[in-house]
């Protein structure tokens, strides 16, 4: 990113830090967390400990970071090197990202930027100008992306509440600031679990590793009565709803299972895993030393804010997470696909000088699809 663009973004981020500091959530037990930040075009500073939100504010204003992070873990000594921090416990975190959902719409709104010659096109394999295969992909997520991610979030929350007995007050949902959602779980029985144990929770939530026997299909002398009932709780219940469709279909479906046999039933379970398992990023949930984007901070991949969704159904990130002004700015934009922000359509732009509202300009500059004129 060039100097001029960095200056432009820094000014806007700084303004946001001044005017919207109330949106920042410095997290409970701030002094036991590890903080970190990044500045534009430079590396990560981490192992930072902050006493309270005053210190956080100071850090933001002094450094004008492009991104701010905070650990889900609590440490005795958060500012020491990793092996001396003394890990105490960690909140349970889930990451749901539209890019992991295999959505067909993605093709339409991902643009490629050639790392060699900066050519921008919708060709994601090979640069049409210099044939380089080093292509940096930028996605401008659409409504389908958001709606599908929300659906996964709802599935996740349902499991957390009914299977894991986590109360809704202890679950917080955030828009990630780019293509998905982060779900935080506080004060649960899982706080002190290590990564191996968290990996088991991941498989549970993703419905991975299910055995035919446990879902009704015995290897020897299969028996209709061991298949789950439509009204059962947990995964047996969810699986039966997926497999039977309706209560009245139970008997017919089971006959089908019995006649097609054990290994076909395993395939059905695998299929169910794809369909009804929750598509979370396993590595994020397992990681107990990671620092995550801080709620309330701006995601420099988009200029949008990672903010909390009080009402997931109604939440519209491209309006509700967009906090920059409407003031017009001049940029040179090169963006072959159109996008929507604050209910206005923008693009496509073909290397042209345009005058657009600041919030849209920030979005394009953050995605490297425009520079300040």
């Amino acid at each position, binding site marked *: 990113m060039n100097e001029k663009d960095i200056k432009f973004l820094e000014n806007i981020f700084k303004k946001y830090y001044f005017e919207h500091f109330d949106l920042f959530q410095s997290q409970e037990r701030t002094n036991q967390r590890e903080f970190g930040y990044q500045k534009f075009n430079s590396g*990560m500073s*981490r192992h930072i400990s902050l006493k309270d939100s005053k210190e956080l504010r100071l850090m933001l204003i002094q450094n004008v970071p492009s991104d701010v992070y905070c650990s889900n873990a609590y440490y005795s000594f958060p500012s020491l*090197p*990793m*092996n001396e921090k003394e890990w105490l416990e960690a909140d349970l975190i889930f990451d749901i990202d539209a890019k992991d959902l295999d959505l067909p719409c993605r093709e339409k709104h991902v643009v490629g930027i050639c790392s060699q010659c900066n050519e921008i096109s919708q060709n994601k394999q090979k640069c049409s100008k210099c044939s380089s295969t080093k292509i940096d992909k930028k996605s401008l997520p659409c409504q389908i992306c958001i709606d599908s991610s929300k659906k996964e979030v709802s599935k996740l929350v349902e499991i957390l509440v*009914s*299977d*894991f*007995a*986590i109360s809704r007050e202890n679950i917080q949902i955030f828009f990630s600031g780019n293509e998905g959602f982060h779900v935080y779980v506080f004060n649960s*029985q*899982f706080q*002190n*679990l290590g*990564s*191996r*144990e968290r*990996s*088991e*929770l991941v*498989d*549970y939530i993703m*419905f*991975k*590793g*299910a*055995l035919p*026997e*446990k879902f009704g299909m015995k290897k020897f002398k299969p028996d209709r009565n061991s298949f789950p009932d439509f009204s059962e*709780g*947990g*995964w*047996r219940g969810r699986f039966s709803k997926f497999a039977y469709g309706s209560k009245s279909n139970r008997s017919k479906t089971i006959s089908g299972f019995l006649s097609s046999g054990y290994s076909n039933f395993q395939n059905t379970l695998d299929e169910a895993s794809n369909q009804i398992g929750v598509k979370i990023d*396993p*590595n994020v949930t*397992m*990681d107990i*030393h*990671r*620092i995550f984007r801080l709620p309330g901070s701006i995601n420099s991949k988009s200029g949008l804010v990672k903010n909390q969704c009080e009402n997931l159904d109604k939440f519209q990130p491209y309006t509700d997470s967009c906090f920059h002004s409407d003031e017009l700015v001049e940029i040179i934009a090169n963006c072959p696909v159109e996008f929507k922000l604050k209910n206005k359509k923008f693009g496509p732009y073909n290397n042209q000088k345009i005058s657009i509202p600041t919030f849209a300009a920030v979005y394009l500059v953050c995605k490297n699809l425009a520079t300040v004129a």
Partner: protein
Amino acid sequence: MLSLGQDEIAKYPFLADAGQYLRDKGFSLEQFGSDPDLKQLIIKAYERIEVAANGQIYKSDLSEDQVLKQSALPREVFSFLLAIVLLKLSNAHTLIKRFALAEARRAEKYLERDLGNISDESKKQLAVKVINDLFSIQVEKIEDNFVIPISDYIKHSINFHEREWKLINRHVENGLVFLSSHETVRLIRKELGSYINLKINNSKTPSMIPGFEEYVEKLVSLSKKFSSVIVTTGEYPPCIKHAIEVLEKGENLPHSGRFMLATYLLSKGQTVEQIVPLFKNAPDYNERVTTYQLNHLAGTSGSSTKYSCPSCEKLRTQSLCFATSECENIISPLQFGKRRIS
């Protein structure tokens, strides 16, 4: 500690304080060596170890017959306590491990029976308490099931490889996992074994007692049958060789040992992909987790802190050092084998 009745001590002899038990019964170890009647119990103790060494579970004399039981109970406890004395005197680690495992299996049977006991509430309470006190798992009975919190369940179930132990294959409801009495007890098998093993290792080794020598010698030769000779080549330092051997045998290497091994090999330029297979035999192997942990140590994941191999001094305090003369004058395993300039 739990307060135990005679009956319970016989079932779970590892819960008793050995010295205290002998004193309460008015015996000394010397008497077992000299009194011909009591000496029978040393033979019993030896047999108890032998059975365990062969991978079987010692069949006790415990029966439901009250009269027989009165005399059988103390014998049962004595043979266990004497077995430990013999094992300590012969210093045969492989036998100790096998013995601990077999005794765990034996106790498991009683625990399961007690847990499932519907007519005697106090027996059930004891089993629940043993599980809670030793392994901090809160077991509760709901109708015909035993339920434990998901987090307690996972901490133990991750030691199993079989898919049926995965959380997804369990009845989970309301933050709890539903198990049968058999499964509940099975869940702690490994820990029960390690608990007994630790208890034996931590007990003091007495000096040789007249009358015990014969059986101690027999144990020493028995133990030779079970220890295998391992040849390791290459110029790894002894601590690293040892750690690799432990893993190759499929035994459990403590966290500190894994840390040492991984950081050592990473410093020697091996990649995470090269190191992961080393851990394949570990009882708790999970490829995704091992890769994550190694990446974490290598500093290639989120934290970007690269961990370095601990010093010899640190490893000594962790009982991971197995220094030989070749280790002279080095302060880190990484220096091992580098020729010194004289």
